[in-house]
């Protein structure tokens, strides 16, 4: 019965989404509140129907209903309880269900929040959001239905992809999708602004916090993804420039650009066209990301034809871009912004440059990701550009961005005077130069590492400078010493949330620099009792044991690690053999430290346990990437709090 109910729920929800989208648009044109109310009821019904579809799927997972193809493909009788629930978003079909559920939820929140407040935009926002929802429901009906039947019904399922049996994979897709879907709200507001012709600053103020929230979730998703890659995949790294990673990174880059450029528009009423373009691009890339991460399209152009989902998604992305840029062209003559750039040396121009660099980085990543497809389609030659391409091209961009991160926030608006420059930069620049010399004396010989670390110190100094001035100002106006920092953060949460995000990025940059410059790797085949020397560690192979787990078979190596100072640790990297997989899965063992991680991966082994091949990584400073990521998300969370400052008439 589950497939019938499921199909019915999705089908009806699709119909309602189409109806609601059209009705909301009609309501906007005619101004009849009854039409709008009807569209709102449709949105509520859609949400309930999607929840029903999700409940059906989850119950199918929990009861091992292998008559559903999606269940049979993504679980088996050995799959642990929690992973049977999260298997829901283990592959394309269920991910689309999750996407739609989030979007329907966001639509309800928009209805509750903006029904009265944004009377002019609201009907169009509702119409656009329901339109996007209709597309995802359409995808669920036929091309990627989670309710497709499986005949004959197998006795057992294939099981969840073992790499996904990890807590990171429970949270990572959820965070990422909350980010992807969150972008829909600013996009819908931008469309509403274009349709109504009110292309001033209102749509930006209305969606500011939505944008930050979406950015927060995207960052969190990327962060958890990196951590998952590091501790599950067993290759010793956290970012491989894999198309799937790039897919999430591109909207993050354009979203970051958008977050910065809206500040200029709010403040100086410039860049209207640019901001609309950025939000359209970000939404387009979020759609593209959803499609890339789950379809495996990038292995070859030829796999395009295999599933119809590719054509569906590309068609929809094309439609969205055509519609959005069409509106943009239609409103073209109204988009000349009243504000103008006064000077090259101003905060505006620093932000503008930051925007160009971020968009350039997004473009490079896009180009590198689709390059194999382009080349195969255009020249018929199979080529690829791997990690070296992305690293080489993005490195100068990211270092420049780091530099701008220090400069931008402390330059004066409109025109920076000599006085402003001296006051804000004399001390940080000096600190940066001293730091560079210090690192050199300390023995850092990689020019790149010195440059990157000196930039980090410079930016940190600018932030410290600004923060201490803010605190002193608060103390002058009567705050106590201990209360001042907290008050400063809460009263100007947007500004200081942003600074905390910047601090987080700096800490991440330290982690990336350290892991790139100083990590060590070693690989050896060891007989029992033999040791591998890596860095200051001796890794001794003690023996091999085997065990049977609920859904796999596990071979564990035992290694005693000694190091010159800290004594002994016993580490147990393993290999897991899943019956449904042709290949064993490495189970990494690691010891995490602030200075370095020791990371062991079990390789080939003799069946009698006499010898094993072991890969060892000493990864320097990697932990700071996770710490920085945490700081960054905290900053974003602070910035997303409601603005407490009294509104300044002109600035809003």
């Amino acid at each position, binding site marked *: 019965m589950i497939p019938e109910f499921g199909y019915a729920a999705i089908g009806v929800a699709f119909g309602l989404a189409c109806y609601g989208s059209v009705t909301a648009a009609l309501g906007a044109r005619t101004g009849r509140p009854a039409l709008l109310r009807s569209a709102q009821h449709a949105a509520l019904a859609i949400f309930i129907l999607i929840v029903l579809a999700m409940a059906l799927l989850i119950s199918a997972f929990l009861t091992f209903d292998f008559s559903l193809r999606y269940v049979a493909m993504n679980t088996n009788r050995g799959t642990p309880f929690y992973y049977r629930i999260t298997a829901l978003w283990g592959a394309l079909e269920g991910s689309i269900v999750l996407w739609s559920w989030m979007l329907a939820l966001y639509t309800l929140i928009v209805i509750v929040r903006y029904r009265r407040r944004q009377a002019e935009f609201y009907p169009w926002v509702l119409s656009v959001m329901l339109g996007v929802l209709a597309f995802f429901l359409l995808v669920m009906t036929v091309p990627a239905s989670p309710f497709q039947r499986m005949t004959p019904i197998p006795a057992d399922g*294939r099981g969840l992809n073992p790499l996904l049996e990890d807590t990171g994979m429970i949270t990572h897709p959820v965070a990422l999708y909350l980010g992807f879907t969150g972008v829909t709200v600013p996009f819908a507001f931008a469309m509403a602004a274009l349709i109504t012709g009110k292309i001033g600053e209102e749509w930006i103020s209305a969606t500011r916090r939505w944008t930050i929230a979406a950015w927060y979730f995207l960052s969190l998703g990327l962060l958890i993804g990196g951590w998952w890659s590091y501790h599950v995949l067993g290759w010793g790294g956290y970012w491989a420039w894999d198309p799937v990673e790039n897919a999430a990174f591109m909207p993050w880059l354009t979203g970051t650009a958008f977050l910065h450029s809206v500040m200029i528009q709010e403040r100086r009423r410039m860049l209207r066209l640019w901001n609309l373009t950025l939000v359209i691009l970000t939404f387009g890339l979020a759609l593209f990301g959803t499609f890339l991460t789950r379809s495996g399209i990038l292995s070859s152009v030829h796999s395009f034809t295999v599933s119809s989902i590719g054509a569906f998604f590309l068609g929809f992305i094309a439609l969205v871009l055509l519609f959005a840029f069409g509106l943009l062209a239609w409103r073209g003559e109204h988009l000349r912004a009243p504000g103008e750039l006064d000077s*090259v040396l101003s905060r505006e121009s620093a932000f503008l440059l930051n925007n160009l660099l971020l968009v350039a980085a997004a473009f490079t990543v896009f180009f590198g990701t689709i390059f194999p497809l382009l080349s195969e389609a255009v020249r018929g030659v*199979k080529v*690829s*550009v791997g990690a070296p391409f992305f690293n080489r091209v993005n490195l100068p961009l990211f270092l420049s961005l780091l530099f701008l991160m220090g400069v931008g926030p402390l330059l004066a608006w409109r025109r920076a005077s000599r006085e402003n420059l001296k006051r804000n930069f004399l001390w940080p620049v000096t600190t940066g130069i001293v730091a560079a010399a210090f690192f050199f004396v300390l023995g850092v010989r990689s020019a790149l590492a010195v440059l990157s670390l000196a930039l980090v110190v410079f930016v940190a100094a600018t932030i410290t400078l600004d923060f201490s001035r803010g605190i002193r100002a608060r103390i002058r106006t009567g705050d106590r010493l201990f209360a001042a920092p907290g008050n400063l953060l809460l009263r100007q949460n947007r500004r200081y949330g942003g600074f905390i995000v910047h601090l987080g990025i700096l800490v991440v940059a330290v982690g990336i620099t350290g892991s790139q410059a100083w990590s060590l790797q070693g690989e050896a085949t060891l007989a029992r009792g033999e040791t591998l020397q890596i860095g200051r560690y001796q890794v001794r192979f003690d023996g091999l044991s085997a065990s049977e787990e609920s859904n796999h078979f596990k071979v564990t190596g035992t290694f005693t690690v000694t190091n010159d100072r800290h004594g002994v640790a016993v580490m147990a990297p393993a290999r897991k053999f899943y019956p449904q997989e042709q290949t064993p899965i490495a189970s990494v063992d690691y010891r995490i430290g602030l200075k370095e991680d020791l990371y062991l991966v079990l390789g*080939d082994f003799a069946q009698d346990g006499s010898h094993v091949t072991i890969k060892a990584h000493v990864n320097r400073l990697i932990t700071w990437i996770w710490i920085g990521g945490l700081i960054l998300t905290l900053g974003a969370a602070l910035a997303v709090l409601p603005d407490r400052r009294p509104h300044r008439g002109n600035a809003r």
Partner: protein
Amino acid sequence: MSRRRKLLAGGAVIVATLGYLIYAGVSQSVVYFVTPSELKAQPVSGKAYRLGGMVARGSVRWEPRSLALSFTLTDGVASVQVRHKGTPPDLFAEGRGAVVEGTWSREGYFRASTILAKHSEEYKAPAPGAPAGYQELLKTLRKPQ
């Protein structure tokens, strides 16, 4: 120069720099996918390739001590000797497909830096008795040592 001109000039400089970065990046890191016959037809030493083929039967030699791995990749027409330092990946076996990344060496073999074994994502219902191999493994490992 007017402000507008200055901005345009600045933008042009940035776009040109980016274009150069991408062009240099592509030309330095592009990797061609070739078959053994294509490689044999015009091998260029020092150039990066991705070489795909079948691991010839009876060709795999692995020395666990030195981690020296050598084998022959073939496409039925031509075959190429591949050398690598490291453990063979999990799916790697004679008679199976493999893709190797590396360079053609002057001495007439392919020096692989990475080996990717090919495997299919096709769903197969577990055949009865299929995990028997693992049970065997379990037994040998549990033997008192």
